[in-house]
């Protein structure tokens, strides 16, 4: 056996920030996502509605352009909670389809390639890996949800002035909080389906089915049992119920905002557990 000498020196140079290091993964992922034509096309389409809303805000703040129109119509075009809730519904729809398109590529390829040991043999924990994957989707969906929402809110504040902001700042905060909840649910659903289903198309279908099937079951429960609490298992409905409270608009009949929030927390916990079970560095024999 050779006589060994310590001929190496450990690295002592500077390192990048420990808490921002995981952003390496999203950076590469975003680049690849926007190389997909369908993702790019859907993202561009998702800006059409915010553009129309921009025009709407401009018009409502320039009444001179609307002279001669019906008074009832003039009362209808207001930038209020209802306006932001409609904006959010449309953008949330785009977000669902974008998540279904982009989500399957998040974890499934790493599982298929047995790449998790590779990630975890870096200074990267399971949770930072999960956070990195969540950031990929949340970041991409942000571009079509709260970012244009914030732009619209800012535009309205700019045109209507400080008094409007003081009276309506809760709309902006509510909109951002509402979108964050939606993005969290969407991202976790997409990650969970990506972790369990390796075929992209099937994973995308599972992502969409999660919302449609739970919505359908909720409707069935309500209609068969003649109740309204069945909506509690419908993630889209519960998120909408929380939005209504955040934006101060009329809520649909059914469980209250508190119950809906609790249901969403339970959903998030369940999804995290589902993902945690799959994100193992090695295949575990059972």
């Amino acid at each position, binding site marked *: *056996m*050779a*006589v*060994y*000498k*310590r*001929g*190496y020196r*450990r*690295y002592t*140079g*500077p*390192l*990048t920030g*420990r808490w921002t*290091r*995981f952003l*390496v*993964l999203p950076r*590469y992922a975003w680049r*690849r996502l926007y190389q997909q034509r369908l993702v790019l096309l859907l993202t561009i389409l998702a800006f059409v509605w915010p553009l129309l809303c921009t025009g709407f805000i401009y018009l409502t703040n320039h009444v001179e352009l609307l002279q001669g129109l019906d008074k009832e119509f003039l009362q209808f075009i207001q930038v209020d909670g209802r306006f932001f809730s409609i904006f959010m519904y449309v953008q949330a729809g785009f977000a669902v389809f974008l998540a279904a398109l982009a989500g399957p590529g998040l974890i499934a*390829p*790493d599982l298929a*390639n*047995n*790449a998790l*040991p*590779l*990630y*975890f*043999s*870096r*200074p*990267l*924990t399971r949770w930072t890996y999960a956070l990195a994957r969540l950031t990929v989707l949340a970041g991409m969906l942000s571009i079509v949800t709260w970012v244009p929402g914030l732009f619209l809110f800012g535009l309205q504040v700019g045109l209507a002035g400080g008094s409007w902001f003081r009276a309506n700042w809760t709309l902006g905060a509510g909109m951002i909080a509402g979108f964050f909840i939606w993005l969290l649910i969407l991202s976790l659903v997409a990650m969970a389906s990506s972790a369990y289903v390796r075929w992209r198309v099937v994973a995308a279908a599972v992502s969409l089915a999660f919302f449609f099937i739970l919505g359908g079951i909720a409707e069935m429960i309500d209609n068969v049992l003649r109740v309204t609490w069945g909506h509690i298992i419908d993630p889209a409905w519960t998120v909408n119920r929380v939005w209504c409270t955040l934006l101060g608009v009329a809520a649909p009949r059914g469980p209250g905002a508190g119950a809906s929030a609790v249901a969403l927390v339970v959903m998030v916990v369940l999804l995290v557990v589902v993902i945690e079970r799959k994100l193992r*560095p*090695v295949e*575990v*024999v*059972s």
Partner: protein
Amino acid sequence: MTVQAERANAVSEPRERSEPAQRRASERVGGSGGAQPPGVIFDEVSKFYGEVLGVNRVTLNIPPGITSLVGPNGSGKTTLMNLMTGLIHPDNGQILMRGISPRDPEALMRITGYATQYDTAPRWATGFTFITTGLLLFGYGRVEAEEKAWKALEHLSLTEAANRKVAAYSKGMRQRVRLAQAIAHDPELLVLDEPLNGLDPLVRAETIALFRTWASEGKHVILSSHVLQEVDLISDQVVLIANGMIIAEGTIRAVREEIQDHPSQYLVRCRDASDVASRLFSEDHITEIRLNDDRMGLLVMTRDREQFARALGRIALDGHRIDGVVSADENVDALYEYLIGGE
């Protein structure tokens, strides 16, 4: 007595006896005069996957150098490697990797390079991007990461293919890029699962030379391999594992010396093989002799290597010409056969 219990009894002996060999190895390690680098230490480590045994009560102290984990499929080699790299944690016992617990991945992964046996590189990535991304995750700045990635690719002769997609690599190139990502951050502890699979003879020789260089720098190179001749060629020591239990560990010679059940085999090359055979047969420790067809050599089996050496010396002094003596079973192949294959 169950087969497992028999095996446990059978294997406990070589392990206990291998301690002097370990000590000798440690003494040699400390022989450089400098501080002895801390080893890879497993202390009574057990890992179960539910009711399935991964590894059971593993106690090891691996000094720096090239160590090969040898055992049949499902014996627990990869489990040992995963335990070393902190990808799984033991149910019992403690592990220290050069003084660092695998439960501290931030510290452990700075000094550890791990190459799995799988094609883990994403298909969209080029060899260069793949390695650079890994280094960025280690926390290196972009410029430094790119420099280190390039250096690693140079080590593995992959610079020409650096900007090609990994998906277009041959099997051997994918193996090399796996190795490159493991060494890119200049770790002092390399854990390599089947690192020589798929490499052509030239690259294989270069890679083995690279392992030797790292080992000579005092690094740990721990690898698993099914190719026993290769293990023989490159390993400073071996760890034989079967059914999740350590069968033997130490240098090949030390382990072989401790296997008393099987006589040692020597090939003796000599002119007058018949005479030499008759002289050797008078010795008590000789159990069997087989003459070569050409009558120019013999295969001798002895229970006592030292007595055999002395007897051969006496025969040579009496005027018999001995052209050469080679051990026929001081190799991993034989150890495997004796300790694992024969059961």
